[in-house]
Every structure is written in structure tokens, then in C-alpha cells.
């Protein structure tokens, strides 16, 4: 080993996965901070939170939950598909995941714009008239679902990037850690929603 370039491209699938998991922990804790804020304010303003949650549409929430859970399944399946060396199915499953994510975002868009049309958004005159608990509830609602939506967008970008790699055969049955990792990331998004859903939509 004399003069060739510095080798940093050693491949370690297990290491990459460990790294991804640890990154997922940081994301969980990031949301964890907001969950702490949520639980404290909910404890301090139970009635107002109750009242405010009535404003949210349980139906849209449930639909979005179903969508996310299904997308979580499809991305998980795509990992099996690549292991079975079924490239086409892998791509289809990943495509479905992205499609479902887009539907989720469209729903979210209608939900948010509905709220905003009702004059409920941070700093809005309607909200400033409301009780302090309600201001807090909607502040948290926008912050938490907003941050979650940002994660959806990142997840979609990640999956789309991996799809390209699958197309180019750079991800294959014996080399699919990055697909697995994008799946892990997507499940994280799902995991957070599993808690956001009851906390915002179901506490009426």
C-alpha cells in the first residue's frame, strides 16, 4: 500500500445500520422535547385542551393514520422484495410508499388550510381571543404536525433517492442497507404519528 489515495470507502453494513438507529434516537428525542411541553401544558390546562381538540377533524386524522400505516408496510415489504431479488416489485412498493406520503400531505394541506380559513393560526386574532390553553394547544398542534410534515418531506426525498439507486442496480439483494435505512427512517415518521394522532385528535 504505497501511494494510492486515502481509502475511506470501507463498507460496513452493520455499522451503517447502527448509525441510522442512533440518528433515529436523536429524532425521537427531538420530538420528545415537544412531547414534554405537550404533556406539561395538557396537565396544566386539561379543559382547554379538551375543548380545542374538538376543533380537529378526527376523520381526517384517522384517514391519515391509515395511510401512514399502510405506507409503512409497503416500505417494509420493499426490503423483503429486494432480498427476493424482485427489482420490479421493490420499485413498485417504494413508489406506492411515496404516493401514500403525497396523499398524506394533501390531506394535511386541506386540514391546515381549513383551520387557517377559520382564522385559527398562530398569532391570529381569533386565537388571541381564545383561552390560554387553546392558544397553547394550537401552537403545539402547528409546531408538532409541522415538524412531522417536514420529516415526511425528508423521508420522501430519501426514499426517492434510494429508488434511483435501485433503478441503477446500485442497491441489490446483497447490498441494500441504504434501502433498509430509508425504511427505518420512514417507520420513525410513522412511529411519531402513532403518538401524535391520539394526543391531538382523540382526547376530546
Amino acid at each position: 500500500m504505497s501511494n494510492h489515495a486515502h481509502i475511506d470507502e470501507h463498507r460496513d453494513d452493520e455499522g451503517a445500520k447502527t448509525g441510522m438507529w442512533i440518528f433515529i434516537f436523536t429524532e425521537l428525542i427531538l420530538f420528545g422535547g415537544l412531547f414534554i411541553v405537550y404533556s406539561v401544558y395538557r396537565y396544566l390546562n386539561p379543559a382547554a385542551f379538551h375543548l380545542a381538540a374538538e376543533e380537529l377533524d378526527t376523520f381526517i386524522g384517522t384517514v391519515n393514520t391509515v395511510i401512514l400505516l399502510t405506507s409503512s408496510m409497503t416500505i417494509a415489504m420493499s426490503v423483503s422484495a429486494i432480498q427476493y431479488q424482485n427489482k420490479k416489485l421493490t420499485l413498485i412498493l417504494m413508489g406506492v410508499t411515496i404516493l401514500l406520503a403525497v396523499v398524506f400531505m394533501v390531506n394535511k394541506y386541506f386540514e391546515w388550510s381549513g383551520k387557517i380559513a377559520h382564522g385559527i393560526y398562530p398569532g391570529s386574532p381569533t386565537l388571541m381571543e381564545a383561552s390560554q390553553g387553546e392558544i397553547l394547544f394550537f401552537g403545539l398542534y402547528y409546531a408538532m404536525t409541522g415538524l412531522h410534515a417536514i420529516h415526511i418531506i425528508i423521508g420522501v426525498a430519501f426514499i426517492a433517492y434510494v429508488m434511483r439507486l435501485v433503478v441503477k442496480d446500485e442497491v441489490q439483494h446483497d447490498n441494500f442497507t441504504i434501502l433498509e435505512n430509508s425504511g427505518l427512517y420512514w417507520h420513525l415518521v410513522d412511529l411519531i404519528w402513532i403518538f401524535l394522532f391520539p394526543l391531538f385528535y382523540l382526547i376530546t
Partner: protein
Amino acid sequence: MEKEQHTHIVKYKTYVFVLIALLLMTFTSVAITSLNLGPYTVSAALLLAGSKSLLVLLIFMHLKFDKKFYSIMVGGVFLLFASVIFITFLDYLYR
């Protein structure tokens, strides 16, 4: 570094069953909240959310098939977070 082989392939069927279970739990929690169990509503909803996330972690995220070490880490992180919430509430509950 030697390269570990991912040998375990999860069957599609397993995933479908898990999804069905998850959806059932979702509908149950929606149903429960419309029943109005008072203070138990929240605990029931959170309990269901907890079981759902456990399923996602174990099957979708492959904790069940991976090395034990991952489960230990995940458990540790959740424990840590729970302790932090608990200690924060030592302030708010007793003010």
C-alpha cells in the same frame, strides 16, 4: 471488518398481518374515545399507541430479527425519556 449476511427475510404475509393488527388498534382507539371513559380515555389511547409502536418497532423495524443489541439500545432510550418526563412531573405534580 467482516461482512455480516442479512439472512432473515420477512414474509410479505407477516407484514400484512401486522398492518391489519395496527389498523384494528387504530379503529379501536377511535371507538374508545367516542365512548367517553373519562380519565381512562387518554390512558387507553396511549396504551394502544404504545402497543402499535411496539409492533412497528419489532416487525417493521426488524428489532425482532436483529441483534439483541439494537433492542437494548431502543429500550434504553425509551427508558431514559420516560425518566426525564417523570422527573419533570415531580415539579408540576407537586407545585
